């Protein structure tokens, strides 16, 4: 099975934990007319990692790196959720049953309905398992 088309390039940006850093990142993306589809901030003591799905990840990477930011690409996958009570439970239970460990996750509700973004150890294997169980994964071209 071809799993590549389900693997999405998320950009991760190292950021100090002080006022103005998110604004600086968002301004840079605005200047390049890059649309942010989903994002989250993970925080640790004194610093954080901003994670975002954008429509032009390569351009975002170049722009931010040029400004001196520490940026990395990370592979994530996006699972469609039923948009009613129990939607997350269905997906989470399924992942638990096939022993897929979630490193981190965030969600949004858009025109495709509820979407759960997942970072897992082995994206290829997760794609195979999830699709074999009948769940729907969004292809990366939906975003990019």
């Amino acid at each position, binding site marked *: 099975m071809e799993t590549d088309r389900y693997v999405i390039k998320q950009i*991760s940006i190292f*950021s*100090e934990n002080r006022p103005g850093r998110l604004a600086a990142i968002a301004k840079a993306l605005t200047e390049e007319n890059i649309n942010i589809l989903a994002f989250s901030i993970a925080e640790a003591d*004194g610093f954080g*990692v901003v994670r975002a799905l954008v429509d032009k990840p390569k351009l975002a990477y170049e722009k931010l790196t040029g400004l*001196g930011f520490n*940026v990395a690409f990370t592979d994530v996958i996006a699972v469609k959720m039923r948009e009613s009570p129990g939607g997350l439970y269905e997906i989470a239970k399924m992942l638990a049953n096939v022993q897929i460990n979630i490193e981190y996750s965030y969600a949004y509700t858009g025109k495709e309905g509820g979407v759960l973004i997942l970072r897992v150890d082995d994206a290829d294997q997760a794609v195979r398992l999830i699709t074999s169980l009948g769940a729907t994964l969004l292809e990366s071209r939906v975003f990019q």
Partner: protein
Amino acid sequence: MMFWDPRVEEMPKEELQKLQYKLLKTLVYRLYSFSPFYHERMKESGVHPDDIQTLADIRKLPFMYKRDLRDNYPDKIFVAGQEDLVRYHVSSGTTGKPTVVGYTRNDLDNWTTSLARGLVSCGLGRGDVLQVSYGYGLFTGGLGLHYGAERVGATVLPTSVGNTERQIELMQDLHTTAIACTPSYLLHMGEVAEKMGVSIRDDTDLRRGILGAEPWSDAMKARIEDWLGIKAYDIYGTSELYGPMFCECAEQNGFHVWGDLAYIEILDPVTGESLGPGEKGELVVTMLQKEALPMIRYRIGDITSYEDGVCACGRTHPRVMRISGRVDDMLIIRGINVFPSQIEYALMTIPQVGQHFQIVVDRKGALDDMLVRVEVARESFSDKITDLMAIRKNVEHKLRNTLNVAVNVELVEPGSLPRFEGKAKRVIDRRQL
């Protein structure tokens, strides 16, 4: 050409010591007779020039400190009159009021000779292009290196500090083979060059760095040599001596202090007790031939050690190791002496963080709190918080082991810590004592 002045540089040790004693004796008589300042000092210490019977008797003489120069601003302790001076230099006064130094024609000649010997000893000479990226003007670095390099027949490119991109263009266009600047400025230059798409290693003819004017470590030297593909030689001096005047030879194992120009001692900074070869302490210098502004047992405040054996290069003059800290940079954290250079050394062994750092000292309640801010290297940034936490923990662990005191580490964005074109100022002490 291996030696600039072989007769002096290879002089047998006993002969050199005899010469030093003769010069010291002459100096002490001269100052006792002609310098009200030194006359007064010697009287206060109960020492007369006749008491100097051996070279070791130098220990009977009183010390001189930077504050003596400040207290006698601008030229009250000069021994030469203004009409005999051919130049002034003025120190930047990073630790207080500026100090003025003056030079007779002989002083300038001795300074240039000292550098000529040093530059030749590390292989510089005719055919070399030396880019002098030390500041020109009141600071001694630029003009000192300038005349030293001209004396040995090198071609000088007097770029001074700043305008780094232009410096890199000129380095390429005029085929610079050696550069004289601070080690931190050279690292900065390397970074700027990379941003311009220039590799100093592959795209320039640079082979040597004559680096000094701030403390640096063996690890920083290794980093400069590996990254930029050059040999890094330590150069030492301060305006009170003349300026930069002693440079490492090709052996790169400490800079030779020319015994006919200077006599060195290493002392315990607290007790003043004299220390032997290999022992770390405060460097104290007596300038044996200085005319305008003599210096006897001058306590520069630099921490280092010396070696007295004949060098593999054949030079008999003592070697002083790279300066590892300043007596007055020394931080006391919860009663433990900490030198910023130790932190630099520890960080150099951790590839996940860059070479730049900042120390912030504060007091939390009754306890000193030390924070070290380091930049996460681009190559080692991972999206995982746990990886970043592990880097931080590793840095904290290494610093704790090196310093014997607990340290907090903050990871900051690459390029966000201040870069220094002159002397690096890496410590922010917020303690209100």
